[in-house]
């Protein structure tokens, strides 16, 4: 796997770019670069005409796409294009918003996420989520990680699990002597890595990340991005980001969303283009994608 990444990286960095506008973004491609086939063989999420409503307002219209296993999929697009809304419908976090409703078919390993007999608790245990603002619990570092396994009544050696998760989240060395300290004593970047450790402690299959680096400085962002690369070997990651360079750097596939404004001035999010990140950033099919990634709007 590692070798594949390196050879792919070399290939990508040598590919020539024609438009100066997307040179900057495209130049950052390939810092990881795994072999990404055009079609997805191992589907985790299957979306068919997914629409998300808040009451009468249609926030996302007609999204059809597939998300592949052990891939990092980035959702990019301007504000208000429904990318976070769509992400939150994957693990039924939208259920918490009164009036939110999902239409169309959204399947997880073939199971309909919105079937009447599906328990949202079970969905969320398998599909973890990292939020924009690091939302550590007002408890110790140890308890933050141990909380998920405890509420899920997982029979594990808690000390070992906490160490394993913090190590995987590249935080263990920084906090191993302060496990009893309040998580609030950590810096923003450390808190976000703690949230990721907390998330993998319940052994999920998918990690959804909703602008995980939006409140972090560049160094902390780089650490979280490295961590995502590392985690992609075991988890399927879907990340929403405003930062195109980030999408280019970390993701295997990119979905570009935009908002249509209807005659009443209401914005509806829609999927414009979806494909391997390299093609989206170097040879987009849709002029709107091209405009967005070259910085002409958004």
């Amino acid at each position, binding site marked *: 796997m590692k070798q594949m990444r390196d050879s792919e990286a070399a290939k990508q960095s040598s590919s020539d770019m024609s438009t100066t506008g997307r040179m900057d973004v495209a130049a950052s491609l390939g810092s990881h670069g795994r072999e990404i086939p055009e079609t997805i063989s191992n589907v985790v999420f299957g979306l068919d005409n997914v629409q998300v409503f808040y009451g009468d307002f249609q926030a996302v219209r007609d999204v059809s796409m597939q998300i592949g296993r052990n891939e990092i999929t980035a959702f990019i697009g301007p504000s208000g294009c429904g990318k976070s809304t769509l992400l939150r419908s994957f*693990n039924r*976090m939208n259920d*918490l918003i*009164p009036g939110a409703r999902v239409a169309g078919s959204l399947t997880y390993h073939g199971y309909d996420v919105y079937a009447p007999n599906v328990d949202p*608790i*079970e969905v*969320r*245990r*398998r599909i*973890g*989520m990292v*939020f924009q*603002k690091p*939302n*550590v*619990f*007002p408890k110790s570092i140890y308890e933050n990680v141990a*909380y*998920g396994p405890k*509420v*899920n009544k997982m029979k594990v050696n808690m000390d070992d699990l906490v160490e394993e998760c913090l190590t995987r989240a590249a935080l263990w060395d920084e906090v191993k002597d302060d496990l009893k300290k309040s998580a*609030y004593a950590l810096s923003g970047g450390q808190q976000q890595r703690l*949230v990721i450790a*907390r*998330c993998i402690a*319940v052994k999920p299959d998918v990690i959804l990340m909703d602008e995980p680096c939006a409140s972090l400085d560049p160094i902390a962002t780089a650490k979280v991005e490295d961590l995502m690369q590392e985690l992609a070997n075991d988890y399927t990651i879907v990340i929403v980001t405003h930062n195109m360079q980030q999408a280019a750097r970390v993701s295997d596939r990119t979905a570009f969303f935009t908002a249509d404004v209807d005659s009443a001035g209401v914005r509806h999010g829609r999927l414009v283009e979806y494909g391997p990140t390299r093609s989206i950033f170097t040879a987009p099919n849709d002029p709107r994608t091209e405009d967005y990634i070259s910085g002409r709007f958004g």
Partner: protein
Amino acid sequence: MTATIATTPSPAPESTLEGHGQPLIDKTFRWILFAATAVGIVFLAVLIVYVTLKGLPRLTPALWQNMPSIRNPDTAGAQSAITGTIWVMAFTALTALPVGILSAVYLEEFGNAKSRFQRVVDINIQNLAAVPSVVFGILGLAIIARAFQLGQTVITAGLTLGLLVLPVVIISTRESLRAVPQNIRHGSLALGATQWQTTWKQTMPAAIPGMATGTILALSRAIGEAAPLLLLGAVSFISFNPTGPFSAYTTMPIQIFNWTKNPREEFQILAAALIVLLLVLLLAMNAVAILIRNRTQRRW
């Protein structure tokens, strides 16, 4: 380019920077504001000093060691009133805290804020908090003392005062729950925790400082209440400590009321002394509330 900007001296000001100082209206307004603040502080200070000076001769251990007496004001104390207050407050807390906290948790965490039921409940709780305490006394007399046949007992007083402060407990608990950021709840739910686990293990522990402050302040309102207890028939002369929930009782405000009614000067002094004790108790409770608030203040 930046270097040239930094080295170019700014032109000398055309006039000096002298002004005319604070305009008169500013000064005047400042004084009016200060005077308004001072009125409250001065009156409170005068009251406390007057009562303390007056009650000073009787601020002795006899005040809490001896029982009240009609004939011997020189040796009379207020022990039955102090123990009565403790008993009544215990039952007030037992009534108001569980019911108040549980309803607040329901309304804030489980109820649907937009439902008609909850809107009606919301308005009623707000209004209940503003109902004069004497009305609660009538309610206690008619329903708890008479209809439930609990009579003029500690438990009647505790239930009545509990109902009196219930809206305050509910409102302050709801506010402290609302102060817990939504993303804590979402973080917990996203890990596969149930709503019950989220409320019990995350939201409520995070809200405890706020709840404690609110409920102490609510209880400190109840401790000074005389009006509802007068209606409940706590006026009788009691010179023994309550022995249980169904015992007769008197409380500190009632004892103060009884003593001030008495024309003899010695009883006036006793009343002043007991007022000081009640004030100390109130200030202590408020201090504890402030201490809890400051010690546990969180920035999210």
